[in-house]
């Protein structure tokens, strides 16, 4: 009784209680939660706010797509997650990255090193530059197991063969001794996927993994990625500029523009009813298979220069529904009907 009972019964505190409950619940449920992340680059010609206040979360087993054009900050967001922002120009200047409840930004360098590959793995865009040309594939994939504590080459070798089979590399046993140049683009990307999942990470970050691949090979790889994700129950962050890939691979999508997330939500909701004018315009501007129109919808202007961002909402010079307030202040992120959030004054107005 007493204070605890009062706290429990008091109707005035019901809202607060539920929000505390939600907060506890959310942090427990999220594998990764990024809060107000800011990564700036300090260059001779000024500060470039590559990532400017990004907030999102990833649940266990979920695939989150980060979509955006070049320069929108999607790759830097991912590099920030594993603290690999190009030094010394780039610095994470603010925010929190909570991975399994621990803030990665307060960790020491060797603690982060321990985490990379083991809990958070990454696949990069160009497989040829990620693989060392003078080591065999077996050697490079085996490195992950060596780091994991395996000492005997025999056990490592068997594990490498198993994982190469898992990513469907034909005759893996013979190909162990091959060098990266002897592999095709699609196969190299599979090797990288193998090194990525070798230590059974909780989160896999794939940054434009299929950009250098042909359509049919891309299809093979994305299906494989999806399969691996379902088998291992890991979470996936997929960075891409291709909205088609996001629709087919991800559960939720975050659309980035000029260093900020303008809209986030379930793939179904964002594609069917985009709330932010930028997302809406992107969807309309996309040439679609099977639907031929005389003219494509076009977004006027160019993506902004990060050195010299427009005032207020960065999208306002290109926005068809621009208002006075858009030029003055950046809109807050508000919930959208159907789930998710979007940052636009139109939505804010609609609410009030």
């Amino acid at each position: 009784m007493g204070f605890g009972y009062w706290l429990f019964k008091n109707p005035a505190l019901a809202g607060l209680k539920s929000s505390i409950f939600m907060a506890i619940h959310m942090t427990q449920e999220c594998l990764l939660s990024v809060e107000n992340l800011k990564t700036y680059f300090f260059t001779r010609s000024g500060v470039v706010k590559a990532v400017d206040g990004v907030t999102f979360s990833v649940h266990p087993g979920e695939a989150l797509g980060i979509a955006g054009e070049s320069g929108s900050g999607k790759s830097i967001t991912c590099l920030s997650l594993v603290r690999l922002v190009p030094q010394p120009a780039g610095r994470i200047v603010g925010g929190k990255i909570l991975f399994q409840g621990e803030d990665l930004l307060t960790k020491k360098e060797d603690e982060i090193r321990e985490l990379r590959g083991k809990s958070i793995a990454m696949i990069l865009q160009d497989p040829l530059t990620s693989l060392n040309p003078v080591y065999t594939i077996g050697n490079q994939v085996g490195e992950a197991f060596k780091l994991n504590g395996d000492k005997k080459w025999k056990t490592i070798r068997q594990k490498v063969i198993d994982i190469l089979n898992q990513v469907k590399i034909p005759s893996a046993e013979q190909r162990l001794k091959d060098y990266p140049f002897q592999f095709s683009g699609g196969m190299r990307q599979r090797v990288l996927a193998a090194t990525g999942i070798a230590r059974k990470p909780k989160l896999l970050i794939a940054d434009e993994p299929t950009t250098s691949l042909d359509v049919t090979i891309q299809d093979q790889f994305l299906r494989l990625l999806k399969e691996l994700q379902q088998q291992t129950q890991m979470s996936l962050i997929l960075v891409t500029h291709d909205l088609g890939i996001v629709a087919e691979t991800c559960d939720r999508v975050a659309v980035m523009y000029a260093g900020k997330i303008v809209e986030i939500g379930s793939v179904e909701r964002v594609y069917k009813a985009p709330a932010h004018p930028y997302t809406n315009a992107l969807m309309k501007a996309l040439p679609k298979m099977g639907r031929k129109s005389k003219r494509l919808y076009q977004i006027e202007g160019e993506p902004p220069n990060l050195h010299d961002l427009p005032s207020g909402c960065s999208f306002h010079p290109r926005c068809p529904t621009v208002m006075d307030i858009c030029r003055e202040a950046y809109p807050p992120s508000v919930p959208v009907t159907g789930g998710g959030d979007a940052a636009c004054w139109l939505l804010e107005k609609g609410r009030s």
Partner: protein
Amino acid sequence: MPLLEGQNVTKYFPISMGGLLHKHYGMLKAVDGITFSVNPGTCFGIAGESGSGKTTLAKMVLLLEKVTSGSIFFEGREIKGFSNKERMWYRTRVQTIFQDAASSLNPRMRIKDIISEPLVVHRKSMSKQETLARAEEMLRLVGLRSDHMNMFPHELSGGQKQRVATARAIILEPTLVILDEPVSSLDVSIRAQILNLLSDIQERQGLTYLMIAHDLATMHHVTNSIAVMYLGKIMEMGDTETVFSHPLHPYTKALFEAVPRPEPGRVKNVPALIGEIGNPLNPPSGCRFHPRCDQTASDCRGEEPRLREVTPGHQVACDRV
């Protein structure tokens, strides 16, 4: 009469190694006997994965590569036998926009010089003022401002560079423009601008386009007829609408299915295409697609299927349809 016509065009690259003891290994069959025709005022698309020979074909049309056998006709004249003078004339009629606009612009030249260079080469009698006035006119036509004239390429964005490349291609008022992956290096929001610009210019100048791209959604939007290439051969060719609504060749079907579409919840009813594109040095026997085909039969390995007309204007190189 078709504007551009190819008859049994082949391009083999000899593969050899060593200096003194020259050893000949074989022939890389980049383009292996293809026949096509492009009608004036239309856009003809060539789709295919890397290694299918689409860029080699474009280079032959541009006289940048010699045809190994077969012939290419432009306005009924064979381009192989052109004299130097005729070549100069041909190059005023046929222009190109390269894949990577940024690297096709000389970084040490100003935009006005880049755009007016074709005039300097081909219209020697034109005065300097006239040339510049014409360049400025082109610049405005492609949606840039006059103050871009004195800039250097690095001062422009990707989309603007693509516009400069477009202006340079059309300043001589050619009849045929070859577009090699015109939008693949651009962002989505810029892509639509450039595609719309290209179609506006086509309408205004009565241009004919030969477009090479791997992005099938763009292809569907832009082209009137399309050829799907695989390992140097045309697998399917016809009117774009027909090919996209009723693809017949197993490769075309698989290719269309593989394109990621912005339609959440779409269920792919075809399994992913197995394997990778074959080796052009030693292509598979019979139908080149048979090792990856899900409908392959024993006779697919024997004789190579010929491109045959299934319905008027729709050709397929598969005996099983």
